[in-house]
């Protein structure tokens, strides 16, 4: 019996490059794991078996010819927010249940160019709006560490799939913590890059000024390999940055001796679960032991990030989701009696409750007479929140804290109370508002449930984040833990 699922991306890459395993065999292996074991998790919306096997056969040709990248032949999963040509792209919504994308997202295309295989599309909160993966039209995803619990969201399917090793790695997107929080709750490593580092073209927009795609994998090194393929300037995305992409694996082995780590007091306040706090503290102590310098800092406007986010994100989404109108693609209601009926019923029936709530909040915040009080005010506060980070990075190299105030909560626990759900994103949201990169790295467990350490870097310092995380992972094996039922 093979144990490919216990291997990291880097290890699988070596096996492929040396010919010890073929891409076809590897792809088949993971497809069969998904088919056998995903029923428990519901982490996939679509399994793209035929396309995956065809892509694997091509990758095997490439591997033979020597025209390869480090990722050639590796099978991964894509969050169902990325458009994939010829494969259903639902965004977790009834609205797009029938949508076969006619084109590939830039990220998907980048992976194809690198010879990466698409195993399928992972479950997610509907249109990425949620922190528990419970708002999906396709049902909740279960946390592989405890299937009564949520995997986090919105990239819950990707996180659960990687945690259960149904895929060696997956893509995710992060608008307010949607990579970092599920990575933390599922015990994997996830990175939200600097805004503009990864193209948003073909990534179905939730909140355009906050959305950013990134890797979700077992290790920092794997995230680096993934980011090498994902990152880069894209002329199809005006907000993509024309800046050279470094080799993100190049700095992994740098020492963290002398690294200045800032701990914002606001990330360790009364809202943080004591047990989680203790685990985070242990990880920070480990960094101190590795030679890092720990500095207390302030991010004074942290508490405002949730209210600001719940103006900016809904406002942007209220317009972004207007294109789903039942005219050119997607769900159309039965027998519309007139145009208004077509719009309101297609949208009313096609969107779930949380999506409708956010569209309505955004519509209200932008409407005549309220714009200044809500949207403009939020944009001003966003500036202050962003300045907090700029100031902090004058004195520290990275910022550390928890990715989530608690471990995974139970399915259904917060589903009826949007506000408590929103507040669980308190430590991740400010990073999106500022646009800086952030990671979550597994650093231990509380009662068998994973805890993630968040590491925040300055603009375009993904290499440093990956280096800092990698050094920790050289000393620990939290990232190599696999839930019992998926070993």
């Amino acid at each position: 019996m093979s144990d490919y699922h216990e291997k990291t991306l880097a290890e699988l890459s070596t096996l492929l490059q040396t010919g010890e395993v073929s891409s076809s065999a590897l792809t088949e292996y993971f497809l069969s794991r998904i088919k056998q074991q995903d029923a428990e998790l519901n982490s996939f919306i679509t399994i793209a078996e035929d396309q995956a096997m065809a892509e694997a056969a091509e990758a095997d040709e490439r591997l033979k010819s020597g025209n390869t990248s480090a990722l050639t032949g590796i099978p991964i999963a894509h969050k169902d927010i990325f458009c994939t040509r010829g494969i259903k792209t639902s965004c977790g919504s009834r609205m797009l249940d029938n949508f076969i994308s006619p084109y590939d997202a830039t990220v998907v295309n980048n992976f194809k160019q690198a010879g990466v295989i698409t195993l399928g599309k992972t479950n997610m909160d509907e249109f990425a709006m949620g922190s528990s993966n419970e708002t999906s039209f396709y049902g909740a995803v279960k946390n592989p560490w405890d299937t009564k619990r949520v995997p986090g969201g919105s990239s819950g399917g990707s996180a659960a799939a990687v945690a259960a090793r149904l895929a060696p790695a997956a893509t995710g997107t992060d608008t307010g913590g949607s990579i970092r929080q599920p990575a933390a709750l599922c015990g994997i490593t996830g990175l939200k890059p600097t805004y503009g580092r990864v193209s948003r073209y073909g990534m179905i927009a939730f909140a355009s000024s906050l959305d950013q795609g990134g890797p979700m994998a077992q290790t920092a090194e794997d995230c680096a390999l993934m980011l090498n393929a994902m990152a880069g300037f894209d002329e199809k995305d005006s907000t993509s940055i024309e800046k050279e992409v470094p080799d993100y694996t190049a700095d992994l082995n740098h020492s963290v001796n002398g690294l200045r780590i800032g701990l914002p007091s606001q990330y360790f306040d009364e809202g943080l679960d004591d047990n989680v706090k203790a685990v985070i503290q242990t990880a920070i102590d480990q960094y101190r032991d590795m030679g890092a310098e720990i500095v207390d800092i302030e991010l004074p406007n942290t508490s405002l990030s949730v209210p600001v986010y719940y103006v900016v994100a809904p406002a942007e989404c209220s317009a972004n989701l207007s294109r789903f109108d039942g005219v050119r693609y997607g769900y159309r209601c039965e027998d519309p009696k007139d145009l208004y009926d077509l719009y309101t019923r297609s949208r009313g029936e096609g969107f779930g409750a949380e999506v409708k709530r956010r569209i309505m909040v955004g519509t209200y915040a932008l409407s005549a007479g309220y714009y200044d009080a809500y949207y403009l005010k939020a944009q001003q506060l966003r500036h202050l929140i962003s300045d907090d980070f700029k100031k902090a990075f004058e004195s520290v190299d990275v910022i550390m804290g928890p990715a989530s105030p608690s471990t995974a909560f139970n399915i259904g626990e917060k589903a009826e109370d949007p506000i408590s759900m929103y507040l669980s994103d308190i430590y991740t949201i400010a990073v999106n508002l500022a646009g800086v990169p952030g990671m979550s790295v597994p650093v231990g467990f509380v009662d068998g449930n994973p805890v993630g350490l968040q590491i925040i870097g300055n603009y375009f310092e993904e290499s440093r984040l990956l280096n800092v995380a990698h050094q920790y992972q050289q000393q620990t094996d939290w990232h190599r833990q696999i839930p019992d039922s998926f070993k």
Partner: protein
Amino acid sequence: MSLDADDIKNIAKLARLKIDDADVADYATNLSNILDLVEQMNSVDTEGVVPMSHPLEVIQRLRDDAVTESNQRDDFQSVAPATQDGLYLVPKVIE
């Protein structure tokens, strides 16, 4: 900020969302709670603060004026709910 049933109906109309009558009260409660959360913004004086709409201080890049796209109608319309003679169909629009 408290929204009542009429507010919800008006917002839903503007956003073209059909909300079942039975659900209006729930939406009113939830949206009011969200707006209460949002009101915390008012605790900070932002007089003179420049609004920030993008995380990075970058400017719009301009594309050369060249035709780079070809006809993909059949591809695009293969996922459309209703088409005829290359047109997307909607219930009759009255001007």
